[in-house]
């Protein structure tokens, strides 16, 4: 299949998923207890009848159901995610303003967790491979086991407690120093300092997932014939490990890492809440507090779209990385 057909197919599939999520959003509002318009308006504050009427008009609540859905989808296609009554701003504007911070946090956590996880997982499999220093394998697996069982948000709080409150090494809140008005390099350094704790807190859980995966993938490849062949033709253990084991183990790990992105996005909601990180996860938490359901559903849609977009990118990347993948259904 030529690349263009493949790309078009994948993009179409991604769009279909986004439309399905939008439809799911619509369905949730309809299924929620109570009048959809007042559910959207929120229980706590927005009882302004004008606003409720505006919502009725927006969803055409007197029209047949399919027409309402079409209306809603039509608006989403035009990037109209509704109006946040609480903030007096369109939802899309709020999200657009916050999205870069979340993307930064997700990207840095993805890289850090993958690098740490791959490194430790390979080390664990490596010492088993050479039959040396078994304690290292046990130590790495124990660390992975513990971080796998630690609630993300609690780990984040404990990091604030140790590194901000007790040691005062790193800032605990926000993305930039308030009122510092830094420019250029100084600003980048400032943001980087703010980024350290949220990134670590979000990464350690996923690191533990990747450690297990990397170790398992490496050990599976180690039993294969071409590894024995590598030894037979006189390569050293390190060479076999690098050239025959690691390369073959890498792809399934990265495939799985791509699938995990949705969970990273979910974890970002918790981490941003703890660190007051000005991203869409924090926005979701604010929407929860204010019962601003238009905003809540908007954030959900955009978060899902982000994940789908990154999945699409990984799918395309494979096509260049692995010649064995001849498209049909991808790497799974």
């Amino acid at each position: 299949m030529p690349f263009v057909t493949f790309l078009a197919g994948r993009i179409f599939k991604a769009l279909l998923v986004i439309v399905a999520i939008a439809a799911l959003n619509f369905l949730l509002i309809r299924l929620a207890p109570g009048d959809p318009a007042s559910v959207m308006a929120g229980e706590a504050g927005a009882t302004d009848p004008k606003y409720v009427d505006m919502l009725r008009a927006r969803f055409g609540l007197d029209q047949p159901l399919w027409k309402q859905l079409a209306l809603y989808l039509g608006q989403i296609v035009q990037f109209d995610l509704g109006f946040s009554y609480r903030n007096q701003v369109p939802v899309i504007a709020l999200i657009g303003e916050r999205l870069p911070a979340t993307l930064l946090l997700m990207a840095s956590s993805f890289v850090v967790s993958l690098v740490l996880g791959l490194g430790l997982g390979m080390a664990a499999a490596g010492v088993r491979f050479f039959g040396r220093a078994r304690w290292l394998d046990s130590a790495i697996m124990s660390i992975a086991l513990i971080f796998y069982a630690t609630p993300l948000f609690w780990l984040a709080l404990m990091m604030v407690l140790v590194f901000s409150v007790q040691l005062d090494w790193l800032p605990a809140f926000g993305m930039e120093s308030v009122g510092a008005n830094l420019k250029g390099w100084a600003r980048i350094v400032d943001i980087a300092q703010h980024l350290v704790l949220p990134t670590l807190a979000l990464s350690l859980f996923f690191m533990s997932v990747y450690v297990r995966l990397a170790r398992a993938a490496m050990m599976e490849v180690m039993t294969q014939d071409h590894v024995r062949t590598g030894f037979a033709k006189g390569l050293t253990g390190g060479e076999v490990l690098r050239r025959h084991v690691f390369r073959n183990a890498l792809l399934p790990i990265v495939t799985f890492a791509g699938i995990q992105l949705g969970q990273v996005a979910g974890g970002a909601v918790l981490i941003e809440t703890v660190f007051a990180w000005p991203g869409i996860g924090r926005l979701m938490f604010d929407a929860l507090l204010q019962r601003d359901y238009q905003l809540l559903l908007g954030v959900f849609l955009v978060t899902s779209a982000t994940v789908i977009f990154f999945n699409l990118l990984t799918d395309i990347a494979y096509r260049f990385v692995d010649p064995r993948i001849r498209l049909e259904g991808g790497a799974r």
Partner: protein
Amino acid sequence: MSGFWKRYRRNWGAVAGLAILLFVLLIALFAPLLYPVSPWQMSAPPLLDPFENSAFPLGTDMLGRDIAAGLVHGARVSLLVGTISTLCAVIAGVGIGSLAGYFGGWIDDVLMRITEFFQTIPQLAMAVVLVAIFTPSLVSIVTAIALVSWPPVARLVRAEVLSLREREFVEAARVLGRPTHLILFDEILPNALPPVIVTATLMIATAILTEAALSFLGLGDRNFMSWGFMIGAARSMLREAPWLSVMPGVAILLTVLAINLAGEGLNDALNPRLRQRGE
């Protein structure tokens, strides 16, 4: 059965996990006897340090609520939500996975697309949206967690059924003219069960973490004290009274760790041949 226990016992981590789990289970069962007063009750001066007053061994929070009582009652919610939501997810996953695997064709296609869809969506975000819109209660929390966690079971069961349905004993049952649903329930599913049990055990751990995250975000059922809520409530006191957030977190960590360890032991005991695979 004795062979099973022998294999399980070999993994000392799994035995330790089982011991912790039994301890938490006992505490959860006897919570009303241990602490008959509601954990929401303001029963002492606020912010008592742990080990200061023997009547309140773990101290009190900013509203004078007994931390020990909160931990004990929180164990109930964690275990309850964890097991029931996993049970629902497993039933849904087994149903969808076995239909897809056994019938194949367009049924398989449709069901697997739906499964992929639910796997792509950020799970925690979806659970948050579901619970928020259907108002937080034990029922909505359990439903939301079940709804975001069934896909892996469906995929696993589908794969098992796909390989089992071509086996000779299934062919034999088909030739004998046994009805389809009986072939599925009597011949195929019992053989697909061991990996499902292991996965389900690990899912309970994830469900407990999700429940804690939801109630941390303020989406817990306000009729029941939960560990996640305790951490969320203690957040603002992190500087003044860190132990308020430390203790419920340790409780979650230990419980989840224990379940994961027990799950691994179960895996070793149920699938002795797969031991070396590491997953």
